[in-house]
């Protein structure tokens, strides 16, 4: 019996000791209804005060903008805005129109690249119409054997938008980085034994996670590879993102550390200089990003080329079932704005047109496989069905 089967057997045996009590449904409903009544009373009492406070915030924001005439108007999330997202409805992908909530004229008209929720299909999608333009990779179905045919994981798009690099999922620790032309054509394997990836803004370097925990940078013109050290089971590289200078790389590093919550893993964001001599990832300077509550998780999202803003995902709202994660901008040693999102945030990418200074956010709601492409800058969203990875 494998260790996994042994654990499964023990858990099922133990679970049988916890029998459900007689029907508590009415109790749950009564509790909920009583709370709703109390909340309505509280809201009625507080609404006048809240309205006055909201007006004061708007007046203060306008006044502050007037005092800084040189400042560029940016569509950025307000400080700590909570956005409730309901799961999107899954519909046939070829006929999906995005469910935008703002004038369509202001939406960036660029294709995006998506991986299907079953990890079997990589497509080019028109972000305006929601229609699939082209299927770049289609893997065979598993037919009930989940490990039989591999899948497609992380994706990254070359800066000239002509090549998509992606992680071809294989056996654990044996995945490959492959690439395919946006126009279609054969798939080419670039790197063995790798999974997460990000291509530099100048298109010359490919950073990838190696052997399921380490980090390497691959020079696409020479094929040379530079490895960074991690310390075995104690450290693991997570998400990473290139800076606009194609030299620095922000890296999420997880390491063992017994915390108050007893989770055993903390994350930090490290800033690597990829042109320096390789060293241990943990020796690179850390970006200090305060945590919320007692939640230790951080993850690098994306780096906006025109400003130097680094978007980081902060996993925040642990006690709330309807809570989720928080997008935090970081610049020059300080946390800028933050936006809380009810749900799980997957891939983050900035809109390449720059015209609208919008951010392409890929949000996975609580219903698994129901994700939403979202422009968090002004709260608009487009729903394209169930996908698992996305880049603009």
């Amino acid at each position, binding site marked *: 019996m494998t260790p996994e089967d042994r654990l499964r057997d023990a858990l*099922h045996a133990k679970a049988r000791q916890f029998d459900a009590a007689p029907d508590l449904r009415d109790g*749950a*409903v009564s509790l909920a209804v009583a709370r709703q009544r109390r909340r309505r009373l509280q809201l009625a009492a507080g609404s006048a005060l809240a309205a006055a406070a909201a007006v004061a915030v708007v007046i203060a924001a306008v006044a502050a903008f007037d005092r800084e005439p040189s400042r560029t108007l940016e569509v950025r999330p307000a400080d700590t805005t909570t956005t409730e997202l309901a799961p999107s409805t899954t519909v046939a992908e070829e006929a999906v129109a995005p469910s935008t909530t703002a004038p369509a004229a202001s939406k960036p008209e660029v294709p995006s690249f998506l991986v299907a929720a079953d990890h079997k299909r990589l497509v080019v999608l028109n972000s305006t119409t929601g229609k699939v333009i082209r299927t770049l990779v289609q893997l065979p179905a598993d037919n009930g054997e989940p490990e039989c045919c591999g899948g497609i994981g992380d994706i990254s798009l070359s800066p000239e938008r002509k090549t998509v690099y992606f992680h071809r999922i294989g056996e654990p620790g044996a995945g490959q980085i492959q690439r395919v032309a946006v126009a279609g054509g054969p798939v080419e394997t670039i790197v063995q034994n790798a999974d997460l990836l990000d291509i530099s803004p100048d298109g010359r370097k490919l950073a990838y996670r190696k052997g399921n925990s380490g980090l390497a940078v691959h020079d696409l013109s020479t094929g040379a590879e530079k490895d960074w050290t991690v310390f075995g089971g104690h450290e693991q590289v997570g998400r990473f993102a290139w800076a606009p200078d194609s030299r620095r790389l922000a890296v999420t590093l997880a390491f063992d550390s017994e915390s108050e919550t007893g989770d055993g*893993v903390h994350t930090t964001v490290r800033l690597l200089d990829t042109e320096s001599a390789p060293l241990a990832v943990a020796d690179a300077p850390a970006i200090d990003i305060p945590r919320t509550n007692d939640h230790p998780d951080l993850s690098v999202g994306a780096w906006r080329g025109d400003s130097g803003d680094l978007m980081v995902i902060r996993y925040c709202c642990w*006690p709330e079932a309807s809570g989720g994660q928080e997008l935090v901008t970081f610049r020059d040693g300080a946390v800028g704005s933050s936006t809380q999102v009810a749900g799980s945030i997957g891939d983050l990418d900035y809109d390449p047109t720059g015209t609208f200074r919008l951010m392409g956010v890929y949000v996975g709601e609580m219903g*698994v496989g129901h994700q939403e492409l979202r422009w968090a800058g002004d709260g608009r969203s487009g729903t394209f069905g169930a996908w698992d990875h996305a880049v603009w």
Partner: protein
Amino acid sequence: MAFVGDVVHRETVFDELFDQHHAGLVRLAGLLVDDGELAQEIVQEAFARLFVAMPRLREEGAGLPYVRRTVVNLCNSGLRRRRVVRRHVDDRPEHAVSPESVAALRDDQRAVIEALRSLPERQRTCLVLRFYEDLSETEMAAVLGISSNSVKTHVQRGMASLAQRLESHR
């Protein structure tokens, strides 16, 4: 299509979810907190929250992930509260187990459960979700509100620690 926001339909969906998943969720909570009464309370609380949240859940399939996530979060916050209470009340070990609760287990099963209890909270939760609930990494990430990478890390380290602890008790 009827939306969950429809009052009559909402109650029907709620009843179906309760009938199909209440018992299973009590067992899940029981595994996480190792306390039958607390597990019942947590699951009742989770369903109460679900009832309030249902008008916002536009898709029918969202109810179960919502209530499961609430159960897991309440289990973990419930455990923290219980730890604090115990620190102030007595010196009982964190996972005091009644003799009858382990009597129905074989020796090998009991050893696995005891080793599981000694793991850090997040690793333990991940292992229960993976090997009892049979959730995928993506599903676990959605339940726990953490990244899939973190889930993978917790499962790998949890399994490694579990094997180590079982080995050392041989």
